[in-house]
């Protein structure tokens, strides 16, 4: 494999008080793939994601993102790194006091000296990329539906043209139709923009339709890493439990994979 690793986590240990969440987690995300972090609730998927985006420091172990060791970079480099990725939080985390357009524009207004006309152009275009009508720009987050909040938040995450995108449960809380549309959107943007995407999810549909490679967390470790086929070959009780449910079986059969 000659692909370039974008994120490398080595021997990650995370403890909150005396509760150990991760005990020796290893994983690698390669350039250009859609990578899924899977696992039951409480298995520390979101925690792992937060460690990748410098919201949390692991107790031990190294995290390298885009070739930088997160434990030993200075503030200026951290700021540069932050501008190279976009994050979509689980509930959107749009700023409630700003309109959608202002939310998308906030990074541009803060860090560039572009004219308002250009900013407006970019905002409209990004909103359209995520499938929102430009008129939505003048609404406040409280006036949007769940799916629109996620789309608007995605537009905000995409505004600085990141190469790396983090999604925390992108389809949770969406109805099946919106969830599928959002999956489509992610796939489309991935193809068009050449993004590397890391997402936390436990949506079976997303796992089957969107994700290229994945890590399954269980017992405080990564119990399996690889493509769906590779993960399914791993004989671990957790994998059997995770993919043994009716919802997963139906899809596996549809793909001609024996369970």
């Amino acid at each position, binding site marked *: 494999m000659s692909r370039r690793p974008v994120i490398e986590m080595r021997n990650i240990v995370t403890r909150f008080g005396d509760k150990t969440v991760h005990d020796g987690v290893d994983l690698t995300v390669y350039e250009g793939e859609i990578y899924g972090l899977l696992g039951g609730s409480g298995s520390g998927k979101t925690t792992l994601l937060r460690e990748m985006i410098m919201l949390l420091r692991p107790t031990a172990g190294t995290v390298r993102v885009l070739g930088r060791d997160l434990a030993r970079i200075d503030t200026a480099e951290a700021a540069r790194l932050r501008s190279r990725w976009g994050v979509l939080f689980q509930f959107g985390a749009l700023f409630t*006091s700003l309109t959608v357009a202002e939310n998308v524009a906030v990074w541009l207004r803060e*860090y*560039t000296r572009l004219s308002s006309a*250009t900013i407006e152009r970019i905002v409209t*275009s990004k909103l359209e*990329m995520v499938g929102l009508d*430009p008129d939505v720009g003048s609404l406040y987050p409280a*006036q949007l539906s769940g799916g629109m909040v996620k789309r608007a938040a995605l537009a905000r995450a995409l505004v*600085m043209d990141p190469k790396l995108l983090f999604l925390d449960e992108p389809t949770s809380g969406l109805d099946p139709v919106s969830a599928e549309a959002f999956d489509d959107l992610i796939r489309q943007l991935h193809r068009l*923009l050449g993004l590397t995407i890391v997402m936390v999810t436990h949506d079976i549909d997303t796992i089957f339709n969107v994700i290229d490679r994945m890590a399954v967390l269980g017992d405080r470790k990564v119990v399996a890493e690889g493509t769906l086929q590779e993960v399914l070959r791993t004989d671990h009780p957790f994998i059997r439990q995770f993919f043994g449910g009716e919802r997963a079986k139906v899809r596996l059969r549809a793909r001609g994979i024996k369970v």
Partner: protein
Amino acid sequence: MDSENDFSLSTGPEGTVLRLRGVWRIDRLDAIERQLSHLEAKLPKHGSVVLDVSGIERIDTGGMIFFIAFRERLKKRLRVRVRPLSADFCRMFRLVKRFSRPLPKRRPPAFALLGGFLADVGQASERVVRDFLLFLNFLGAVTLTLGRSLLHPASIRMRETASNLYKAGTTAIPIIALSSFLVGVVIAYQSAVQLQKYGANIFIVDMIGISIPRELAPLITAIIVAGRSGSAYTAQIGVMKITEELDAMKTMGFEIFRFVVLPRIFAMMIALPLLIFFADIVGIYAGMLVAKAQLGINPAQFLDRLQNAVDVRHYLVGLFKAPFFAFIIAAIGCFRGFQVAGDTESIGRYTTMSVVNAIFLVVAVDALFSVIFTELGI
């Protein structure tokens, strides 16, 4: 960074050629925009122009959006050709082109100076009237639930009332003690200076004994409690509304007024008189200390004078007002909490409103009582 984005303008056989260079990434776009706006002025007014993009090393979607906008602007007056087109540039161009419609026409902001002012006044007045009607509605619902609760005392939520009593009453004791002590000191100090001039030292007892229990202790206590607990009521109920806890209670058949509002109002109506009584003691004690220090009046003398010369009705008037203040604070706190809607920002807005309204109404009602009692000769 600017040097690599040096654009050049030349005139050749094909007409004017604008050479674009550099990295068109969104974080460098502002420099590019500045430079291009200079060059744009130097372009011919009509005719044709060739945009040479071979020098652009990298371009992202932000850069391309800008490029397309720039090209559209030129197209209005010039014939524009772009060359030579690399595969990457084309791909990005097509990608972004899909997502850039021309900007929707903006409606001019529809306001005239005077009209806007009148509209603002009208809207504000309408809001005041509507708030008042809503508040009356709220009071009606509270009274109804109160009546029912008094008929069936067993339905009163004792546990919630007790916990609110602790939060609004017990935990407020330190700050009430400190504030009323300081008020007692201030009043005593200021009157001591004046009274000494007339040799009327002993009248400091009357001064303290009347002003503290009758006016100052109730008012100070009510204001502090409005800031502490009235605001807490609004924020708590507001959050419960946003997280749909109130809706959950409704669907489970819990009456919100019985479970959420009445315990808070009861707790406040019990806590505030007690706190005022406590503030009376501390305030008078502070006055007594100052009287000893500044005017040489013994505590024994002070207490004797307090008992014989100052009527107990002053103290009773102060306590009589307490339940009214308490009701105002708790009712407004809850009422504003129910008005919270939608976003987190409205919690802040209504909490502020709740405190301001409650303090204002407390002062207004106090003024009303002051006039009534004086006219009645109490």
